[in-house]
């Protein structure tokens, strides 16, 4: 009886250790957690990475036009030509690489499009990616599944979808009704057809603060106020019309930046972030970020010098 009891005890005691013992003897999962030590934040990562991959395909010593395998993929081929025109409503199954420019007419469907000088897409075009060493123009209603990148300016019409990333080396003008996750530009400007950046003409001298301003609750910076430091609120934060903040704006809740308000630093909201008409984040001298965790809305003429990002829904109102 004693021996039986001991056997049962030892068995029950050892049972939880058996699987671990096997893992110790024959390790299947003993590697260190993966940390990418080469990772660096690059707002134009997709475009830069793509350019590096296609550089050899665009070498000028090769004859064009030609069609060849694309980056070792078995299911996709690349068509390389000097200029490429995609006709309306065409459905192109090849990656299109133009040594000069690529123009895609209304309603076409394309996988990847690259134009060294320019890349343009008409209305209601569907793309996986589109990029250029020059400028990129997207017509109304164009849908990008993954990303857009332009070395120069990026012009986006109304009601587009910009996928996971849109970036430009120069100005990115984004039409109303467009949805996005992240846009980088110098600056990013929300545009309603026929309008441009807006100045509300409010004098920034109603009140002034020398340093940082921190609120424990809901807070509102009055219209026209000038703050030399940063502003943080632990709940909802509203920056009044025409107010100026030399530092950063940080909100633990939703943040609204009023019309024509200027924030020289970052605007960061743990809730949603809204930039009203003509509001500005960042300066021409220093790119900054407008970050709304749950949503980011840019109204007409709102401008971000740098990066406009959200983990939720991005929208040009």
């Amino acid at each position, binding site marked *: 009886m004693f021996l039986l009891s001991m056997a049962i005890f030892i068995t029950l005691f050892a049972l939880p250790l058996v699987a671990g013992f096997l893992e110790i003897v024959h390790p299947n999962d003993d590697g*260190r957690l993966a*940390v990418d*030590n080469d990772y*660096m934040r690059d*707002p134009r990562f997709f475009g830069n990475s793509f350019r590096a991959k296609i550089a050899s395909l665009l070498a000028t010593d090769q004859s064009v036009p030609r069609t060849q395998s694309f980056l070792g993929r078995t299911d996709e081929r690349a068509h390389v030509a000097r200029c490429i025109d995609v006709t309306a409503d065409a459905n192109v199954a090849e990656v299109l690489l133009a040594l000069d420019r690529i123009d895609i007419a209304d309603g076409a469907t394309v996988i990847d499009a690259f134009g060294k000088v320019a890349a343009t897409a008409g209305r209601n075009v569907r793309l996986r990616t589109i990029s250029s060493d020059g400028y990129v123009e997207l017509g109304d209603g164009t849908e990008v599944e993954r990303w857009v990148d332009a070395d120069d300016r990026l012009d986006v019409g109304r009601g587009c979808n910009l996928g996971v990333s849109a970036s430009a080396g120069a100005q990115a003008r984004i039409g109303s009704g467009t949805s996005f996750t992240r846009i980088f530009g110098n600056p990013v400007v929300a545009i309603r057809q026929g309008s441009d950046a807006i100045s509300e003409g409010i004098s920034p001298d109603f009140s002034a603060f020398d340093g940082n301003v921190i609120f424990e609750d809901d807070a509102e910076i009055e219209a026209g106020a000038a703050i030399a430091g940063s502003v943080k609120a632990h709940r909802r934060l509203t920056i009044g019309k025409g107010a100026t903040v030399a530092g950063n704006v940080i909100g633990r809740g939703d943040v609204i930046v009023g019309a024509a308000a200027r924030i020289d630093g970052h605007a960061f909201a*743990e809730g949603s972030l809204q930039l009203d008409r003509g509001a500005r984040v960042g300066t021409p001298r220093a790119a900054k970020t407008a970050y709304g965790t749950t949503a980011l809305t840019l109204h007409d003429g709102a401008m971000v010098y740098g*990066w406009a990002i959200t983990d939720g829904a991005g929208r040009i109102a």
Partner: protein
Amino acid sequence: MVVAFLDIWVAIVVTIMVIYAARHWYFTLNRMLMRQRPFYQDLYDGDLPALSVVVPMHNEGSVARAVLDALLASDYPHDRLEIIPIDDHSHDDTTAILIQYRERETIVAPVFVVAGDRGKPNAMNIALRVASHDIVLVFDADYTPGRGLLRELAMGFVDPEVGAVMGRVVPRNTATNLLTRLLSLERSGGYQVDQQARYNLDLMPQYGGTVGGFRRSLVSRLGGFDVDMLAEDTDLTLRLFLEGWKVVYANRAECYEEVPETWDARFTQLRRWSRGHNRALYNNLLAVLQSKHLRFAQKVDGILLLAVYIIPPILLSGLAANALLFFMGALPIWSPLALTFFVISYNAFGNFGPVYEIGAAELLDDSNERIHLLPYLFYLFLFNSWSVTSGVLDTVGDLIKDRSPFWEKTKRAAEIDIETSGGPNVPA
């Protein structure tokens, strides 16, 4: 009378265990089910702040090159960066290595400490004096920061309330042996769940003294680092919160470190942490209770954080009290008190507390097979209890005798190899 006292003590221990078990559950559920608070690493800044990166070194010849090369490979603009290795009384080839780097790299400005106090707090006080910039990041010498890490950590300081930033520590030598594998599990639970949950809940994420940084002007204003403090990081965390500042945690700012590979080295490390942490408890407990800057939840978290290194001896004392009661005939083996004690202990430090937390962390880290090792953590806990209790006794001795503790560096694997082989270490 004795029986009554022991009964009361066991009841107190059970209460403490319940509180810690609830804490583990709360943090894990928050991490698994609730909305996660973002850090500032997604901010892109075309005008990054100037940084001073400090690397305290005492006989770090085996790792000095790796950490300096990693820092020099950073994408942080070099015109906004200075690297200050502090050679703290080294008697290996650390000094020669630092001289080489100083001559080769203009942004490396080593400081050679050859007299006076030794230890990290003293090295950090020197850094406060010599650093040129207000934001100071700190790495231990066995760390290898990735190319984008400095930028990610620096972004935390865009928040005007932030006094210190802490990144995530990831063991590099996980595969070495059972100890390193178990320590890897511990680290995952501590950072992936514990620190992130504290950050989510706006409690007290801890500045860990490495893979992190602070505002130099602020720390100087607070009086710098206490040279008698072995846990200068915990002490700084408390002092920042007590002054109304915040510590923020960057879960994605990950950096490899080397965890102890021998039980001796682990014992020494944990004993030092316990000794320092308990000194921080002694120094700050009253201030936490009386603070006007801390919310009630932060006070509770602060007290539980400060007390974490006295829990093992308290639990052991509860076990001893139970044994005494049993042998005095005052505790039938099936008494409700004894059962509650063992069940709660099991929940707090056995399978249901930290093990759930660590299992959740491994799930979040997308690790699979290593969770089979979770039951072995119970034995690591027994070992930890021994070293932590030694640290508690050290603290008591320090306070009674008013003595200053001696900083005993955790031995690197390379140093242990040298001792084993009896040969010198000559880095390439």
